[in-house]
């Protein structure tokens, strides 16, 4: 895990981020709530970090539940 490559998904609001977090936990996708990295900016100060290979499932889950995101970025 030390060398894991991560991406983050950014949201438009904190409540969307928290809603998505619950969803990922339920579906077993390993995520971590972290502050939005300095080099990125977002309307909301927190984002969810995930293992980069999980990107397709992250996208699929968010789309299915129609949670709007601001973007996904590698970090």
């Amino acid at each position, binding site marked *: 895990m030390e060398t894991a490559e991560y991406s983050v998904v950014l949201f438009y609001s904190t409540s969307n981020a*928290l809603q998505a977090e619950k969803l990922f936990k339920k579906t077993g996708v390993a995520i*971590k*709530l*972290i502050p939005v990295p300095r080099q990125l900016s977002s309307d909301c100060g927190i984002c969810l970090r995930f293992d980069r290979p999980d990107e397709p499932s992250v996208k699929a889950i968010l789309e299915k539940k129609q949670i709007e995101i601001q973007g996904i970025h590698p970090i």
Partner: protein
Amino acid sequence: MSENVDARGLACPQPVVLTKKALEKADEVFVIVDNETAKQNVSRLADSRGFQVSVEKKGEATYLHLTRKVSGLEKSSVTPATKSDVLLISSNTIGRGDDILGNTLMRSFMHTLTEAETRPSRIIFMNSGVKLVARDSEVIGDLRALEKQGVEILACGTCLGYYNLKEAVEVGRVSNMYDITAALLDADKIISL
């Protein structure tokens, strides 16, 4: 002159209180305790008072033999005071207001702390803050990382007991009001959240 303290069956902080009294009177103290927390707390107290500690376990009981180190070689007199920044976390949320937001801020803070350039030497958890070191806490990974980086994690034993979390501690050390008070009073800087 030596003193004997039988602290078996006594609840925290009694073993520490009795040992402290004995250390003031004698250069050699024999203490019997029956649990790990008491053993650790008594050992730390003795160490901080310049006593050598040797431990022997016999069945349920642990025997601690405390002897005063030769004067002039006491830890406090040879080790120069190092800078001590203490972070005091007395709630599982940051600030007052909505708890969901407060908890989110705390998690975000702990993550950031693992990546910060300066770190506190100690983090002390009190009141509902102790929930952060116990099972189901979202920040255990971060706290473990901080501990690995040399940050001392202390959780208030009274508080863990109150919230029924004594058996659920996942990271750090169970501490008592003596250690916590000393850490706060000795600190160069305290950040209280």
